[in-house]
């Protein structure tokens, strides 16, 4: 469905994308995971024909994508990172304005607007100006503005930035249902949880290169260990960080520590060690490693660095 061949894009002396080759299958929910500045947005801008590559080609559903190929854009829906709406217009006016660019009949456009507004719970607010909406509502409206022409491929560039957890879940459910209806989705994020939750296949991008590609299981198989140890963060565990670090590499998250076991790690020795410090077993949990750990292994940096 989406074929990216040897795409290179440079800005002055910075290589944003370096000979990327990638294929996304029809009806796939593909995630592009990488830290800020990795090249995700540049790739999205190329996929939608907003900018031209310096080298390489992109085809979507057999059609070549460039700045000048406008017809192909009727097959693509693009959800930009920023809220790209007219604040002074109502939700309905915004949708009518953007929808009409795709040569949809007035009747069909009207039906789709109603359908999409209902789908994201904004129908009652359709006549209100966008500037009166909350951040989450704007995000939802921003998303459906890209769906009015019923695209076969949906490109979402970090669509949940700055969104509250409730709206984020609503967006996830909405995207999942779209994927189930048959839409191919390419989703960029720097949140591994989002990629893990939504995507059937993930490409990890860093410094303009795809450094890992596959399903979550395939990616995690590349790790040197099968499980990671999550330790609840509290004063007692925080005091004993040095003890944990004897058993491997310790990552500090907001609510927990995550221990990546070192070579020759034995669970019995670990529990014996922490028991001496008075750390309760219930604060410790064995987990499947995250993509964060893989990213760390591949780059030596964390996703959010």
């Amino acid at each position, binding site marked *: 469905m989406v074929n990216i061949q040897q795409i290179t894009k440079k800005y002055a002396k910075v290589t944003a994308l370096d000979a990327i080759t990638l294929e996304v299958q029809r009806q796939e929910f593909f995630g592009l995971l990488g830290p800020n500045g990795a090249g995700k947005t540049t790739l999205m801008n190329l996929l939608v*024909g907003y*900018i031209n590559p310096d080298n390489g080609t992109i085809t979507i559903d057999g059609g070549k994508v460039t*700045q000048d190929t406008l017809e192909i854009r009727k097959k693509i829906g693009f959800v930009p990172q*920023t*809220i790209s709406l007219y604040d002074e217009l109502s939700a309905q006016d915004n949708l009518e304005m953007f929808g009409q*660019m795709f040569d949809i009949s007035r009747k069909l456009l009207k039906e789709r607007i109603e359908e999409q507004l209902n789908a994201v719970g904004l129908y009652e607010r359709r006549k209100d100006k966008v500037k009166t909406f909350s951040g989450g509502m704007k995000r939802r409206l921003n998303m459906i503005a890209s769906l009015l022409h019923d695209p076969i491929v949906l490109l979402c560039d970090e669509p949940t930035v700055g969104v509250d957890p409730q709206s984020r879940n609503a967006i996830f459910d909405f995207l999942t249902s779209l994927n189930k209806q048959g839409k191919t989705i390419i989703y960029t994020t720097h949140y591994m949880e989002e990629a893990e939750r939504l995507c059937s296949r993930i490409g990890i991008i860093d410094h303009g290169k795809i450094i890992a590609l596959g399903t979550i299981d395939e990616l995690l198989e590349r790790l040197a260990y099968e499980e990671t140890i999550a330790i609840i963060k509290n004063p007692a565990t925080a005091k004993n960080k040095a003890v944990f670090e004897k058993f491997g590499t310790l990552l500090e998250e907001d609510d927990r520590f995550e221990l990546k076991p070192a070579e020759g790690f034995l669970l019995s020795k670990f529990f014996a060690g922490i028991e001496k410090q008075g750390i309760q077993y219930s604060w410790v949990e064995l987990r499947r490693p995250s993509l964060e750990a893989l990213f760390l292994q591949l780059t030596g940096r964390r996703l959010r660095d």
Partner: protein
Amino acid sequence: MKQVYKLFKSSYRIFWNDKVSVALTFIVPLVLMSIFGAVFGGSSSGPQGIRLAVLNQSTSSIAHSIESSLDTIKAFRIIKSFKTDSGKTIAFDTLSIQEYVRNGKAAAALVLPPDTYTDTSVGLYVKFYYDPKNDMEMQTVRGLIQQVVFSQFPSVMAQSALRQTERYLGIESGSAFNRRMATLVHKYFNIDTNVILRPKLSDFKIGGRDTAGTSQNFLNNIVHIENQQLIGKEVKNPWATRSVGGWGMMFLMFTLTATSSSLFDERRSGVLMRLLTSPVSRTHILWNKYIFNMSLGIIQLLFMFIFGWIMFQIDIFSNFFNLMLIIIAASVACTALGMLIAAFSQTRQQANGLGTLLILSMSAIGGAWFPTSFMPSTIQFFSKLTVVYWSIDGFMEVLWRGVGFISIVPHLAILLGIGAFFNLISVRQFRKGHIFD
């Protein structure tokens, strides 16, 4: 107080980092002060190069003296002949000189008829034909003409007196009487006898307080200037008819610069990107901006003219077709200017700053605030390169002179040409793409 000082320091830091604000604070007033200074206060201030047609049909030395004096006045560009359609240069006659003014080729005409001053005259007689298209300029022209003509008064009086003395006492006795009188005046008032016997222009002063009031009426009887307005007599509200074009152009430019700069807001809000990721190209967006701005400009100008018609009885309908053509051409040129400013600016703030500078400068030198003839010749040259000059002149041709299509072809061609030229540059600049990146 410490906190106020810290805030004060921060305010200056913020201000200084905003280069556009700095430029607007210092450069705009500087440019305008320079223009106003050049017009009203500089060493070479005052009007220059006002086209004045002159026809001297008199053989008298006084008429010759008037003609010579006019030649030395830098405010005037004296024209004494015209070119026919076949390219032949012909000296004016009484009809052609009036036609010349009617056609807008000269602001006014001064005719010194055969009887300007004769051997039997006791006063001067001249004819003044004028087109008060530009009130301020015409007041200056009239003032200068009066000054030149009235300055002949002492010479006229002295020559008349000497002639009358000689006529009644005979040449011998009259001359002797004149010489004696001159000697007496010289003795008691210490005035050169030559000045008394052969008066020259420079020996007498005219004007000032002593010529006001009753003496002014006396002068008017001696020096008779026959005034005739050739154009605009039927205009109901001359002031409003003259002003509406200038004001309209200034506001039009502000509006169109602002709407052209809306591209920056659309870029910042991401709307531009959303449009460019739908089946819309950069060219589509630029065309839309251009057509929208142009139509908005037409509507705005039309609105102002209709308001002028309702409020000030400006006659916009007797030559409506040609007025519309100038409105369209002015909007085309102003839109192109707005797009050019947007194309060369990096941010909305820059566009606003540059726009303000250009609009105020162009309004000043283009004749929206005061006649271009009041500016130094260099600035007069530049004023003819502005959209404002050609638009205002076009409006005046249509509303004041009521000219037909052929007469406004140069205005239309120049305005559309300026529009096309600006568009060419701005499209090239837009293609470089900073606004779309």
